[in-house]
């Protein structure tokens, strides 16, 4: 049977796929039918009745959004009868609609305006008193103007069907129908902005930029979001020199047009008044704003002096994993070739290096699964803590796979599976939730591996590897694993069997593994587990490691780490430079004399006293950043860099997709794109005489840099998706598998604390975005309500967290959340806190990744007198 049908629309034959809606077929035939409730992302609801058409042999007009095409169907979309009906519906919609288009932020891109215009001049027959609603708000960011609402319920349906948040609903009946927060509660949702984006009229609008623009004044630029490794395509919309709004066109990009709160409401960081806008130079008695000419001269002179005095290995450089591929490529070139040092590292050191190193080691590629694989999978094993908070759009793909495609979901995390707010919570959707003790990921991996090994290991796994794996687990009992993780043998067996039996299983790994103790080893073990379950090496299967930074993958692939040259060419051990921590230590020892930090703030990110001493010990500290930080306060030279919105280039997302950034606005103040600064410095370091810095710029544009970078890549770059058999057999031959012995930690009245990411923030940059700081402006410690009750804590009451030693504690207000397991605490990491100094700090033996996100603390009430 053919999968296509032929129908006639307005006398024209159209051939379309079966299941196509008449409204879509008509569009293909060149006839756009007016509509409001129809949206390609949503199931048809046929409530607006605007898209009525005449279909032969049907006595009544039919809604074209809900009617599927059929062979031989004859459709009229603009007959007299149809136009009369559509005009009638339009008259109904316009009756109560206020004529406030001049002050409506939707004006100019309003479907009601556009479709009303289509019917030509019409005198409104409505001579009655208009029904009015008071303007109200959905929380701090969304304005609700129900007088403009056409009750199409796109917002409600999007929230239910796409986001799965179910935060909105219909209130009241008849002409008093309005959209409201469900059960009239305060809106407590993901604030993805989807309801604003999908509203065809001005009923739901953003309060962030109210009256700041007319839509036609906005200059729109398609680019990539900076706030996590999901790699969402967004449209930066600028009025004058500022980003005023962000949107994402339906269906575009890896995100398909869906955004999260950070993407939609987080743009305010770009034009924040705290941005560094001019180079700054430290004088003996203070800081001096200088010209770029001065800054380039001082920076190159400083570096030259250190190289001359101490040799090139006395210089080190670290670049943020939120810089573009172009920036990272040029930075490592500047360091390795021009300066001649081996010491170059990036922010990917904070965890993602574990993923890329381990996957490359085992499979020969770090591109092991895509979002399409998630959507097509029938079983997902998620080792990712709270994915909705860290990688909201990847979590959206998981939700879609579970809800629409009935995929089975197994989550492994310390969270409760309870959901209490309208924020999605994957453990709540999971078919099996392995609620592990905080920090016991490796025990959980061990449990699953043991269960798979003892029952039904996949046949495709290399024999020598299988033998080694068996040997490694022998002697470790499920009892000891249960004691450490809290998960029983039966639970492990059940979850393992579920994943093993999947036709297309995808393993998703997040920061709880990548930034947890011994993350590199855990990642290797997970790669083995995926092979054991037969979930690699077949289409639709694989592993996806979630990145916190927008370009973590790219920063590694461009050679921004000591272990890899551009294109993931492994450096020989003797030519392997220092990692970030090693550089700090070397600076402390006086071996490294100059550090060039790009978007990195080790004083904050490494909770160790030695960092400050090391930085103080330097002869030259150059900081290139967007905002002043604890580290820039110590810098000799501060270079103001452009944000993602002001520069072009490429980001490589966590799938390994290389995507293009486009500058949406001119640089803020005198800031410069990173690549431009590096390109100038490369030549400034090479020249002896002073020259105007503009003449030193070696690349005409980011595109030129990209071409150079691509030419510099080895053959076979970018790596193909999936495992390479050669790499696999090499790994099988050389692998050494050891498991840390599972051990149970006694709580002894303490709480297990995790420091982690919130949905409303990413790093510290997002705290400069007024939209996001409105949603979360200050840290609080999340605690289970029963624990709070047990301790007699009131909401927002101040508590003190203190560590084992006599170190001074940290004071924070408490908030209760049922998501947080009893006996555990969670604190968001985005605010300047000394909290991490209370937690144990370890460094990965292989990858040098610093770990310090979790540990045991004592929580005590702060007495009123003391505060």
């Amino acid at each position, binding site marked *: 049977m053919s999968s296509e049908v032929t129908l006639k629309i307005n006398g024209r034959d159209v051939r379309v796929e079966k299941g196509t809606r008449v409204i879509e077929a008509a569009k293909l035939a060149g006839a756009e039918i007016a509509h409001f409730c129809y949206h390609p992302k949503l199931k048809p609801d046929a409530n607006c009745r605007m898209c009525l058409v005449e279909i032969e042999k049907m006595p009544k007009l039919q809604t074209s959004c809900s009617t599927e095409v059929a062979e031989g169907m004859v459709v009229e979309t603009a007959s007299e009868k149809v136009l009369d009906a559509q005009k009638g519906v339009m008259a109904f919609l316009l009756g109560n609609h206020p004529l406030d288009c001049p002050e409506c932020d939707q004006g100019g891109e309003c479907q009601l305006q556009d479709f009303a215009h289509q019917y030509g001049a019409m005198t409104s027959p409505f001579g009655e008193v208009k029904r009015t609603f008071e303007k109200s708000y959905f929380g701090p960011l969304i304005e609700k103007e129900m007088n403009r609402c056409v009750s199409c319920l796109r917002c409600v349906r999007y929230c239910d069907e796409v986001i799965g948040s179910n935060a909105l609903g219909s209130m*009241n009946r*008849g002409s008093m129908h309005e959209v409201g927060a469900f059960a009239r509660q305060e809106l407590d949702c993901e604030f993805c902005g989807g309801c604003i984006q999908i509203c065809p009229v001005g009923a739901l609008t953003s309060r962030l930029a109210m009256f700041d623009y007319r839509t036609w004044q906005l200059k729109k630029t398609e680019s990539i979001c900076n706030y996590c490794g999901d790699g969402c395509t967004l449209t930066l919309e600028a009025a004058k020199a500022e980003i005023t709004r962000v949107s994402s066109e339906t269906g575009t990009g890896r995100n398909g047009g869906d955004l999260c709160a950070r993407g939609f409401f987080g743009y305010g960081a770009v034009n924040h008044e705290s941005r560094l806008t001019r180079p700054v130079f430290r004088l003996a008695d203070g800081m001096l704003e200088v010209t770029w000419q001065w800054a380039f001269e001082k920076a190159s002179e400083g570096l030259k002096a250190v190289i001359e005095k101490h040799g090139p290995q006395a210089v080190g450089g670290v670049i943020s994993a939120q810089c573009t591929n172009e920036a990272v490529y040029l930075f490592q070139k500047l360091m390795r070739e021009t300066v001649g040092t081996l010491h170059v590292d990036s922010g990917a050191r904070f965890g993602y290096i574990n993923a890329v190193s381990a996957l490359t080691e085992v499979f020969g590629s770090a591109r092991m699964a895509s979002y399409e694989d998630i959507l097509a999978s029938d079983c997902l094993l998620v080792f990712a803590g709270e994915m909705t908070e860290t990688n909201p759009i990847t979590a959206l793909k998981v939700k879609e796979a579970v809800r629409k495609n009935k995929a089975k979901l197994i989550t492994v995390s310390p969270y409760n599976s309870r959901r209490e707010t309208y924020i999605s919570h994957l453990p709540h959707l999971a078919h099996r939730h392995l609620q592990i003790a905080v920090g016991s990921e490796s025990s959980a991996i061990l449990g699953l591996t043991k269960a798979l090994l003892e029952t039904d290991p996949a046949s495709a796994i290399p024999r020598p590897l299988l033998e080694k794996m068996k040997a490694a687990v022998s002697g470790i009992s499920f009892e000891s694993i249960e004691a450490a993780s809290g998960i029983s043998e039966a639970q492990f067996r059940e979850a393992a069997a579920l994943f093993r039996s999947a036709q297309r299983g995808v393993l998703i790994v997040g920061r709880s593994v990548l930034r947890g103790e011994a993350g590199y080893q855990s990642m290797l073990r997970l790669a083995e587990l995926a092979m054991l379950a037969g979930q690699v090496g077949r289409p639709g299967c694989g592993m996806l490691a979630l990145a916190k930074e927008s370009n973590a993958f790219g920063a590694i692939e461009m050679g921004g780490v000591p272990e890899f040259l551009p294109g993931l060419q492994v450096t020989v051990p003797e030519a392997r430079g220092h990692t970030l921590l090693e550089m700090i230590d070397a600076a402390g020892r006086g071996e490294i004399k100059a550090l060039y930090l790009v978007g990195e703030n080790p004083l904050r990110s490494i909770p160790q006293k030695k960092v400050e001493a090391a930085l103080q010990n330097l002869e030259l500290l150059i900081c290139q950043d967007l905002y002043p930080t604890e580290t820039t306060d110590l810098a000799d030279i501060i270079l103001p860099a452009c944000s993602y919105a002001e520069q072009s280039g490429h980001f490589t997302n966590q799938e390994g997709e290389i995507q293009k950034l486009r500058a949406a606005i001119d640089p803020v103040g005198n800031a410069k794109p990173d690549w431009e600064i590096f390109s100038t410095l490369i030549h400034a370091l090479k020249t002896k005489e002073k020259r105007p810095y503009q003449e030193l710029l070696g690349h005409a544009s980011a595109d030129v840099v990209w071409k150079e970078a691509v030419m510099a890549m080895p053959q076979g770059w970018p790596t193909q998706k999936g495992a390479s058999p050669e790499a696999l057999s090499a790994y099988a031959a050389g692998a050494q598998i050891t498991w840390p012995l599972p051990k149970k930690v006694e709580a002894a009245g303490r709480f297990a604390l995790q420091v982690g990411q919130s949905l409303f923030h990413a790093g510290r940059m997002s705290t400069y975005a007024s939209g996001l700081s409105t949603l979360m402006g200050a840290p609080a410690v999340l605690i289970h309500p029963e624990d709070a009750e047990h301790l007699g804590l009131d909401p927002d009451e101040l508590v003190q967290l203190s560590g084992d030693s006599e170190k001074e504690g940290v004071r924070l207000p408490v908030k209760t959340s049922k998501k947080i397991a009893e006996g555990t605490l969670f604190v968001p990491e985005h605010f300047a806190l000394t909290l991490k100094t209370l937690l144990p700090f370890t460094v990965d033996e292989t990858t040098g990744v610093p770990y310090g996100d979790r540990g045991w603390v004592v929580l005590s009430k702060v007495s009123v007198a003391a505060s």
Partner: protein
Amino acid sequence: MPKYELILFKNMAQPGYKGSLEEYRETGGYTALEKVLKDISPAEVIDEVKKSGLRGRGGAGFPTGLKWSFIPKDQVGPRYLCCNADESEPGTYKDRQLMERDPHQMLEGMAICCYAIGAQRAYIYIRGEFDLGAEILERAIDEAYKAKVIGKDIFGSGFNLDISVHRGAGAYICGEETALLESIEGKRGKPRIKPPFPAIHGLYQEPTVINNVETLANVPHIINRGAEWFASIGVGKSTGTRIFSVSGHVKKPGNYEVPMGVTLREMIYEFAGGVRGDKQLKAFIPGGASAPMMKPEHLDTPMDFESVAAAGSMLGSGAITVMDEDTCIVWAATNLMEFFHHESCGQCTPCREGSAWVLQILYRIEQGHGRAGDVDQLEYLCKHIEGKTVCAFGEAEIGPILSSINHFRAEYEQHIEEKGCPFHPNAALSMAH
């Protein structure tokens, strides 16, 4: 002696009959269920109901046996019966009496239907305001479980059936069968777009039959006395008896069970005793608030589905509302529109916006602020609601308006020209709200 044989009202017409299970069984109750469970195949039951010509008593008059036969025979998985006891059509109060006075008659009908369609779970969706009815049904269901006429292995046949009462919360729209399903599922009561129809994707997306109380109450009698007997009552394609709820300006308002096809004249002047105060009849609604109004010239129309439709109205829920010569038609139309505006669910544009708009114009006309062109505008609005809504509510709300304009246009024009209501000089004051 009643003029016609009572069937549904027979038991409750007996002095002292309380509707308990014991009393019901004394009159032969549950023998029909026992008979089908022991001797008749589901297909034969459906066939019998088809042959009887029984049609839905809720309003639309869809053939019951045919509806049951739409349930897929071989599909595995659950299927459901929902008894529509959300009797909310203004003027209609027949189901209430059937439930309160003889609940087992309906429960037996439900059990037979469930057996025929292969359902093991049935819901009675009862109007929120029916406190007493809900209590009586709960009690009757308890009795039936105890007597094992519902529950597990009924009459040793291996057939299981659970029945529960689900109380509505007062929305008229929940009487619309798909809104009713949404409501049982715990969602906002709003009609679904059709197709798919409930017989394929009904309650919880499973095959579902939705039948009215009176429809189901007829079923045991059809089984006991045969399809031919049932088909011999009434006229043409309208078989059996029908309970008419007569209200308004009559001397003896009430429920009357008569064979289909008696004339409206007989109903109003014989059964209901004629117009109150022997005034002249001005207009009447033959089938509930959503049925178009009729005039005295239609009095000899037989009360069967086809004849009433041919006369331009519908038999609907069988509620006859009578208006005497002192009734202001605009007032009456406004009153009905107030109801429909209040009950519009707000889902689709024409009904949501149109009901409010029409009502505002009616208010103005009745209060003396009518404008030239208002009546045309009312007609325009009604015609742009008609056939363009998600559910039949659109047709329902315009029925009384269009028909009143049709029959009494001059009275509307009079309101507008005289800037006031000839019947209620103080309409503006009395309607102020």
